[in-house]
């Protein structure tokens, strides 16, 4: 079971969190022209690589904050966690 440091609450076990996928995906701005391909890339296309992966988790059974986590997808080692508005 992963041990994730919630930047708001501290170290917590994984079962307090829910996963939210790739944190590098940027939602296109509202009301802005965007090509079909760019939109589809946002909705469907993920790199999902082996190694360091920036991802989202929500501390759903805790402070309910979304956080950003940098984790190795091969070893599950966690390098860094930051608050939602911070860059990772």
């Amino acid at each position, binding site marked *: 079971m992963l041990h994730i440091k919630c930047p708001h609450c501290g170290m917590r076990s994984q079962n307090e969190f829910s996963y939210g996928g790739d944190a590098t995906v940027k939602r296109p701005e509202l009301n802005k022209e965007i090509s079909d*391909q760019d939109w589809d890339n946002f909705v469907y*296309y993920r*790199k*999902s690589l*082996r190694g360091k992966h920036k991802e989202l988790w929500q501390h759903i059974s805790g402070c309910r904050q979304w956080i950003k986590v940098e984790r190795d*997808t091969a070893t599950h080692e966690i390098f860094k966690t930051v608050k939602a508005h911070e860059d990772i």
Partner: protein
Amino acid sequence: MQKYSIFNLIKNAFSGHQKWDLAWKDATPKKEYDVVIIGGGGHGLATAYYLAKEHNITNVAIIEKGWLGGGNMGRNTTIIRSNYMHDDNALFSEFGMDLWRKMSQDLNYNVMFSPRGIINLAHSDAQMNIFARRGNSMRLNGIDAVLLNREEVKEIIPMADFSDNVRFPIFGGLMQPSAGTARHDAVAWGYARQADSMGVDIIQNCEVTGFDVVGGKIQGVRTSRGDIKVKKIGLCVAGSTNILAEKLNMTIPVETHLLQACVTEPVKPVLDSVVTFGAGHFYISQSDKGEMVMGGDLDGYNSYAQRGNLPTLQHVLTEGIAMMPFLSKLKMLRTWGGIMDMSMDGSPIIDKTHIEGLYLNCGWCYGGFKATPASGWTFAHTIAQDRVHKLNEGYSLSRFNTGHLLDEKGLGTKTWIS
């Protein structure tokens, strides 16, 4: 090639089994091939076999990073079924069922295909209706399906929880009697043996390091055992698709996730059918060896580690006991993990790509094993003819642009919760 039969088995017994041929040869890569299949799993091996058998293309190499059949082919829970709602999935899978039924004879290798039936349990009238929709769709597509009521389910699996102390009572279930299981390793070995006998080179311990693409066309593949010139490459590497796609500067609508499975200690036959739980995600069958083979949810975060964590298994087994309380007393013997290509609509991709000569077979989620023959057959056709077959038309890459999605579960792009 030596034929496998009871007579040959007896004959060989008298020479102390010293005269059996190699099931397949460990080939070393040649400089050039007509087709290179990347990935020596079930799909890659089947593709090579059907390229040789159906299209007479035998100057083919399968290159495998590790050992043949060592990825999901050797890690799945061996369930074979075609109980799909969407036509594209249903017709493709049912075509595969026909290949399964003939496979042992076709390959002259006993893959132990065992049509013991699969039952999806329903725990509410609403779920019975959802299953009816799928079952009726199957029937209209020519696939066997039976809607069972509670009593009928009880007759087949009396050890399921029909007591009052149950959170989600069993209302009934959808059964596909012709579904079943097979011996997964044997399928890989059987395809390998036949492909090898028709001239396909099976190259293990050979890792792809890069591709030669010139002017949008495939010219070759670079490997840890040398460069190979080739005009057509079939990518069959579920679990590593994203890694190879990166080497091709491609992004694919697939995420890589971890699925665990486990078995109990072997016990005498107690469960004949494959059964799935309807109020969660749990499936079970009993192997010929007597082990209860079980699985359920993904670990829930992107992963390439073939090792999972216990809470997911705990969750899966909780559902197992909710469905069949007697499992509580059995002992979990072995757990393992496999790396899944989770596509964004839960259905696979078998298609050409924007690179000429590069063909893509991926996104099998956790349904890859049953698709082995149909996937190999259609992929071989796609590669040989340079066009998709009607059976894999629905499995196009472009569906993520056009909206012709094949979302059996209606869960959308959150690949980790499906």
